[in-house]
């Protein structure tokens, strides 16, 4: 991980170097100086962490446990994967239908809740989100191509 961090730092340094990283006489640091030296600092501490790892100073480097076990990968993977799915689906079918599918999956197949509870929440939560954001707070959420379906609701809301 520290190796990755060090690589990121180098990347950031290069990116910052596109701007003026020097000290402009009479004006103070240029616009790239701040992120450049910060990333340089990141590189330095990452190297330090790597060194400590090789020397086995930190407890993680001495632990013989696997970084991630199969079980925890499954548990974490399901959650992370379902959020990923939620985001991708939002782009395709809009947030409300994405929420519907996300809840269906999570409640029914992960939580093994009854169909009744699943359906109630599946419909209830998107409706609640809709009322709160679109109606009360007036923050339109992304709807993608399902947008026209909401026109009649707007008709009722604002008439």
């Amino acid at each position, binding site marked *: 991980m520290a190796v990755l961090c060090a690589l990121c730092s180098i990347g950031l340094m290069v990116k910052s170097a596109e701007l003026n990283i020097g000290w402009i006489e*009479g*004006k103070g640091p240029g*616009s790239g100086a701040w992120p450049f030296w910060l990333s340089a600092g990141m590189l330095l501490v990452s190297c330090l962490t790597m060194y400590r790892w090789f020397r086995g100073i930190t407890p993680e480097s001495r632990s013989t446990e696997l970084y991630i076990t199969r079980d925890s990968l499954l548990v974490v993977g399901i959650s992370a994967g379902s959020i990923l799915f939620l985001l991708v689906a939002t782009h395709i079918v809009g947030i409300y239908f994405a929420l519907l599918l996300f809840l269906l999956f999570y409640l029914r197949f992960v939580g093994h809740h009854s169909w009744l509870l699943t359906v109630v929440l599946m419909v209830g939560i998107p409706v609640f989100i*809709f009322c709160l954001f679109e109606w009360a707070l*007036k923050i339109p959420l992304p709807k993608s191509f399902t947008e026209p*379906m*909401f*026109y009649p609701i707007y008709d009722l*809301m*604002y008439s």
Partner: protein
Amino acid sequence: MSTIFNKSGKLMLSAVLAVATAFGVAGTAQAEWSPKKPVELIIMAGTGGGADQIARLLQGLIEKKNLSPRPFIPINKPGGSGAEALRYLQDKSGDDHTVLVTLNSFYTTPIIQDIGVDVTTFTPIGRMALDNFLLWVNTDMSDITDLDSYVATVKAKGKEWKVGGTGSGQEDSILTAMMEAYFGYEVTYIPFPGGGTVAKNLVGNHIDSTVNNPAEQNEFYRAGNTKPLVQFTAERLPAYPDIPTAKELGHPIEYYMQRSINGPPGMSKEAQMWYIDLFETLFNSEEWQTFCVEDGLACESFLKGDELGAYHQTEIAKHKDLIEKVGAAAITGE
């Protein structure tokens, strides 16, 4: 207030009913165009600034006067001196439910940064106001009484003279660069996050002078903390009858900031007409005109549609010239 909350129960119910029927029927056909969903009112600056205030005032007036069947929702996209807002509008090409409230970064940002947006393709709707600029110093500077003594002092001080502004590439930095080029002096320009903060730093003597809009300085002027030296307008503003314009003193420096409403490229003709009507009504409203007078804005004429488009063309040409003359480097400071 209370009426809205009384309605809430009914609305909630109807919203739920609507979800049930939504899948069957699409929107009903209408003779004249009007928004079918909430309209996004994009602000190319952050919360609390001049553009933001205007957007929120307009939103409030639309609601108060019941001018639109759907609400207007202000959204701030201040990123990259408005570059983010311009890109957003570009991506919304052909959309009839997005309009943009502009400042002059509408012209300058695409010139200074390469963001791949041509603002002349945007759909012009209407110009709501022109904002003015004055040169301000702290009243403690008793030996500076007019433009001549100001220029003399600045020349003597050179780089030690600190001019505050709202950011490199913003209107006041362009005006500052114009003055530097014209009078042949060089100052240190310090950017702050907003006009109000600039004013505070001027009152606290952390900066020596600034070119601010009247609205940002008026209260400090009335309290006797700051004083204007010169106006960069064609005529003296009614609020400052005793302050000369630069033109009167023989210096042809004039600069304004437009506040206009524009749609994304390719907005439908019908929608454009509807928005023009709406904003013209707002422009002529008593509330808007009072606001203009109080804020020192010029709101004599409403430029609409193609007139505004032509105005944008000339302003872009002017800004290109200006930026070329003073050099983009003088504005961005690098």
